[in-house]
């Protein structure tokens, strides 16, 4: 059966007849995500590239307009599924801002801790995948071990490995289980030992440097012009980080540095990510030290579900529970844009409410999508073999890019 092609590349008509047009993806083992690159090649050199995304589009924005505020949380998990907690917290903060809710001190520090913990997992995944695509299986397996420990540990807390849905408007789903913090320290020490091995294997490795140094190089000007944020922008030397510039959660109280690169090439992106993991580990430890006691959710009947025991014994609590689940939270009319520093860059939620129990509009400014908009500039002029490492160093996450 014949199907029309889902995309129409401008290279079909405009490519030089002496050159070859090839198609990479959308389902290709090295793209670890569904993305399609149509590239015009002169020998081994990429002359022009046409990057297409959208193969994982599932109508996140349309879907959330038809769900109550709490029911959107599982959808936000599936944006960047390597660091779902970061997405959760940005979304929750956007709704809380409209509601005028201030979260409890314990929740504030816990969210910060989990943001950084999930950032470690995300960066490790990114570096592991791009190293593996260059043939470094050992580094990949080391990092996947660390990542899996973290995921198992988060599973203990939230009940899921990847899609946590752990946040609630005005707080968190539940407090930490017994022994969670003790295990956390074990994993951090384990991660540090393994990261040292990664540094030993890659930092001065001739093959790795040959593949990454001076590949997909860019300037700060270029990065800003194409809207790059996060480690990609910082690898060019600009220390722009929302955790410092527009501190949210408990970041103003933490002591940390913003690592930057020099050349803005693949090697710098690798190194910035590795250094950020170091900073994150230190931040997680600081959060553990300053973690205050108290409840994790605000005591506000508009948003917080009553405790289960009261639901089963008191009629008022039962009615509150019923109304919150069936009708949802009513959020005052207004609009807000909240952005956090997600592992990939600026993750923004633009939320418009009309005063009903469902978002009138919820738009996600996803870093991956913006990065793909400028991706072709980093591919053009380099070899075909560089496409995959460059792609890995940008860390495109399909769920977030295509929404």
């Amino acid at each position, binding site marked *: 059966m014949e*199907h*029309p*092609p*889902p*995309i*129409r590349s*401008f290279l079909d008509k405009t490519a030089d007849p002496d050159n070859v047009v090839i198609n990479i993806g959308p389902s290709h083992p090295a793209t670890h995500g569904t993305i399609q690159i149509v590239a015009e090649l002169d020998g081994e050199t990429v002359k022009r590239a046409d990057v*297409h*995304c*959208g193969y994982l*589009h599932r*109508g996140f*924005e*349309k879907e959330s307009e*038809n769900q109550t505020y709490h029911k959107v949380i599982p959808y936000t998990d599936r944006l960047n599924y390597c660091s779902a907690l970061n997405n959760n917290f940005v979304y929750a903060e956007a709704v809380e*801002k409209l509601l005028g809710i201030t979260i409890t001190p314990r929740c504030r520090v816990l969210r910060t801790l989990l943001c950084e913990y999930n950032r470690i997992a995300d960066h490790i995944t990114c570096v592991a995948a791009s190293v593996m695509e260059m043939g470094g299986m050992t580094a990949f397996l080391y990092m996947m071990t660390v990542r899996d420990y973290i995921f198992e540990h988060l599973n203990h807390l939230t009940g899921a490995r990847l899609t946590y849905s752990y946040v609630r408007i005005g707080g968190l789903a539940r407090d930490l289980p017994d022994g969670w913090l003790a295990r956390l320290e074990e994993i951090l020490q384990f991660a540090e030992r393994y990261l040292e091995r990664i540094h030993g294997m890659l930092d001065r490795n001739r093959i790795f440097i040959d593949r990454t140094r001076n590949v997909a190089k860019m300037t700060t000007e270029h990065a*800003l*012009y*194409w*809207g790059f*944020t996060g480690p990609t922008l910082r690898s060019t030397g*600009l220390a*722009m980080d929302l955790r410092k*510039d*527009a501190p949210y959660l408990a970041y103003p109280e933490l002591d940390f540095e913003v690592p930057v690169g020099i050349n803005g090439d693949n090697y710098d992106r690798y190194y910035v990510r590795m250094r950020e993991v170091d900073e994150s580990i230190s931040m997680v430890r600081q959060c553990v030290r300053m973690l205050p006691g108290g409840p994790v959710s605000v005591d506000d009947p508009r948003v917080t579900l009553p405790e289960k025991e009261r639901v089963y014994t008191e009629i008022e609590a039962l009615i509150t529970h019923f109304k919150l689940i069936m009708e949802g939270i009513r959020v005052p009319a*207004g*609009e*807000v*844009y909240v*952005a956090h520093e997600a592992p990939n860059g*600026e993750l*923004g939620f*633009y939320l*418009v409410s009309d005063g009903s129990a469902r978002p*009138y*509009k919820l*738009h996600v*400014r996803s870093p991956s*999508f*913006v990065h*793909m*908009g*400028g991706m072709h*500039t980093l591919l053009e002029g380099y070899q075909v073999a560089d496409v995959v490492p460059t792609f890995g160093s940008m860390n495109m996450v399909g769920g977030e890019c*295509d*929404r």
Partner: protein
Amino acid sequence: MVYEAVIRELGGLYDRTWDSFGMLVLELRAENLFALVSRLRDEFGFRLFLDVTAIDYPQRSPRFDVVYHFYSRDHNRRIRLKVPVPEDRPEVASLVSLYGSARFMEREAHEMYGIEFTGNADLRPILLYEGFVGHPLRKDYPMEMEQPIVTYRK
């Protein structure tokens, strides 16, 4: 404070201004958009184009609001622009000549809401596919509507 300077010096180019949770919002007409954004970029350092999307108000005239977000690293401030456009002529100037990142994001707003960005030569579908009918984020596009590119197997 950069907000006061923007309000003072860009006088005439916008119609209304208000504050939204600490972020400056300017409402302006479509014909002033390009001039205002050029000045925001060159004189006030708003060099990072964050986002463009639209909001659909089916009962209202003009029906759409095209919403832009920009960030100025120099002043560490964000700004939001809102451009109301009518349903029969949903046109705004494209910003691709000022910001490369506008390219993909305008393509998305174009296919999702049918906003025409004059000057953007490449408005092919990006998240949807060739031949998709309608604009899915408009409020009158039904939730249940399906347009499978490959017919479902029985």
